[in-house]
C-alpha cells in the first residue's frame, strides 16, 4: 500500500519560537504510526497543522496526493476525510452518547441537506454497532457529561469510527486514564482500528509498546528518530532526551498516585 500522508519541510513558529522546523513525515496507508516526544516537542502542533487548525510558516502537507496545506478544518475533515480525536475528551457534553455518534456520521453535513430532514437510515444501526464495540451500549441514552473520563475518551474514538475517515489522528487517547482503562484502549485501537491508517500521539510507553510498530520521535520541533519500536528504544539519542527523562518524570507521579 502506498503513501497517504506526507509533510515536506513543515515548519511553524509562534512569536519567533520554532515549534516545528523542517518536519518530513511519511505515513503509509493502513499503517499505525505513533508519534512520541517530550512535552513541547511539537506533537500536537503537528496534528493541528495536518487538520488545518493552524497554518504553517512554510512547508507543505500532502494527503492522498492532494496539497492540503492551509485548508480549513471542515474541508480537511469533509473533503479529504481526516478525522481527529483531541487531547482530553472533546465531545458534545449535553448530548447523549448515541447523539454524539449520530452527529459524527459523515452524512447530511450541509444546511440544505440537513434542513428538516432526518439522518439517512443506516446511521442509527451503525451507531448501535459502534456503541457495542466501545462498550457504551447500555449507556447510549446517557448525556456525555454523565459518563466517566475513560468512557468519554472511548466515545470520542467511537465518533471517529463513525466518521469513517481515511486517516485517524488520535492525540493522547489514554490521557487521564487508569492503567486498566489504558490497556483496554490499547486493545480497542488494535482490534477496532485494524487496517485503518492511524496516527497516534502518546506519552504512555506501555501503551506505545502495546500498539506500535513504527515510531516517530519528535524533539524540539524536529524529527529526532524514526523506525521500528525496538530500534527506537535502543537508540542512545532517544533514550537520552526522552525515554530516560520520561522515566524520571514518571516516578514521582506513580509514587503520588
Amino acid at each position, binding site marked *: 500500500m502506498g503513501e497517504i500522508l506526507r509533510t515536506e519541510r513543515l515548519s511553524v513558529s509562534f512569536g519567533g519560537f520554532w515549534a516545528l522546523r523542517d518536519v518530513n513525515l511519511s505515513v503509509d496507508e493502513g499503517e499505525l504510526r505513533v508519534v512520541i516526544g517530550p512535552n513541547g516537542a511539537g506533537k500536537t502542533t503537528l496534528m493541528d497543522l495536518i487538520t488545518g487548525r493552524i497554518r504553517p510558516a512554510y512547508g507543505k502537507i500532502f494527503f492522498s496526493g492532494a496539497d492540503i496545506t492551509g485548508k480549513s478544518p471542515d474541508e480537511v475533515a469533509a473533503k479529504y476525510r481526516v478525522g481527529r480525536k483531541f487531547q482530553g475528551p472533546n465531545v458534545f457534553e449535553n448530548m447523549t452518547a448515541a447523539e454524539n455518534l449520530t*452527529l459524527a456520521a459523515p452524512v447530511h453535513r450541509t444546511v440544505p441537506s440537513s*434542513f428538516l430532514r432526518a*439522518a439517512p437510515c443506516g446511521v442509527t444501526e451503525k451507531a448501535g454497532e459502534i456503541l457495542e464495540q466501545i462498550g457504551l451500549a447500555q449507556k447510549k441514552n446517557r448525556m456525555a457529561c454523565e459518563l466517566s473520563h475513560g468512557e468519554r475518551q472511548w466515545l470520542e474514538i467511537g465518533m471517529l469510527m463513525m466518521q469513517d475517515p481515511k486517516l485517524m489522528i488520535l492525540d493522547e487517547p489514554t490521557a487521564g486514564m487508569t492503567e486498566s482503562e489504558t490497556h483496554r484502549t490499547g486493545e480497542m485501537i488494535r482490534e477496532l482500528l485494524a487496517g485503518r491508517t492511524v496516527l497516534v500521539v502518546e506519552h504512555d510507553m506501555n501503551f506505545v509498546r502495546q500498539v506500535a510498530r513504527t515510531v516517530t520521535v519528535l524533539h524540539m520541533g524536529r524529527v529526532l528518530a524514526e523506525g521500528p519500536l525496538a530500534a527506537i528504544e535502543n537508540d542512545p539519542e532517544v533514550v537520552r532526551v526522552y525515554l530516560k527523562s520520561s522515566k524520571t518524570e514518571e516516578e514521582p507521579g506513580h509514587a503520588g498516585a
Partner: protein
Amino acid sequence: MEKLRSIPANRRADLLIFLVLALFPLAGSAFYTQLLTKYMVFLILAWSLDLLWGYAGLMNLGHAVLFGLGGYAMALCLSAQQGVPDFMARGGVTQMPLWLKILSNPAAAVLAGILIPALLAWLLGIFLFRSRVGGVFFAVITLALAQVFNLFIQSQSVWTGGFNGIGGLPGLSLSGAPLGLGQSYYFVFLVVVLVYMFCVALTRSRFGMILRGVRENETRLEFLGYKKASFKAAAFAVSGALAGLAGVLYVPVNGMIAPNDVGMEFSTAVVVWLAIGGRGSLTGAAVGALLVNVLGNALSEQFGAFWQLLLGAVMIVTVLFMPRGIVGTLMHRSEGREKRGEAQERG
C-alpha cells in the same frame, strides 16, 4: 395510554398548553381573549429566539429588530390602504412611492415581513460568523443593533411615524372581511400551532441536532466536517423569519407599533422570558412567554411599575438557583428520577 407515555414529558406539557389556549375564549372575557391573542403572538417570538439561543447557543440581544422589521412592514401596509398615510402626508409626502404601493398589498407585506428580517439576519450572520464573532461579542453587537434600529425608526419619522409609531390600524381580516374577536383569536392560534409544528420538526431533524452541536462544542463540529458559520447563519435566518412573522401578526392584533416594540427594552424582555421559562426545549420558551406576560399584566394592575422590580427579582433568583429555567429544571429532575428508577430495577 402507552403511546401517550412514549411522548417526551415536555411535548405533553405543550399539548396541555395548547388545550388551555384552545378552550380559553369559551370561558374567558373578551378583554382577556384579546390580550391572550397578543401573548400567543409572543409565543412565536419566544420560539424564534429559542431556536437561536436555546438550540444554537447564540444569544441575540437585538431580537426585537427582526420582530420590528416584520411589524413595520405590516404597519406600513395597513396604513397605506387608503393612499398616502396621514403621518407621511404631514411630512410632505403627496404621492405613494413605488415600494409603498407594492407593500400595500397584504400578501407582499407578509412576504416582506418574513423575508426581510430573514435576509438581514442571514447577511449579518454570514458577516459576523465568518469573521469568527461569537459568544458575548455577538450579544453585544446585536444589542448595539437594537439601539441603532430604534434610533433609525425614530429619525425617519416621515416614513415610520417616528417616536409615536404607527397607530389606529385595523385588525385581522381575511380577503377583505374583518375577523371578530374570537375569529382573530383562533386564526392566531392556528398560526401558532403551525409554527410550533415547524419548530418541533426542525429541532428533531438533523439540522436541529447540528445546531445543538454548535451550542455544545462548535470546534468539535468543525473537525467533523461541518461549516459552522453556515449553520449559525442559517439558524439566525430561520429565527429572523419567525420573528418577522410574529411582527407581522402583532401589528393587526395590537392595532399599533412604536419604536418601543423594536428596541433594546423589548429585546431584553424576550431574553427574560426564555431565561425564566428555560431554553432549548420550546416548552420553556412558551411557559416563560405566557407566564411573564400573564403575571405581568395581573401584577402591574396591582403594583404598577413596581412589577418590573418583582420581575427583576424573579429573574435573578432564576439565574442563580435555576439556570436551566423553570421547564429545564423540571425536566432535569424528572430525568434524574427516571434514571434512579432504572438503576433500582436493575440493582
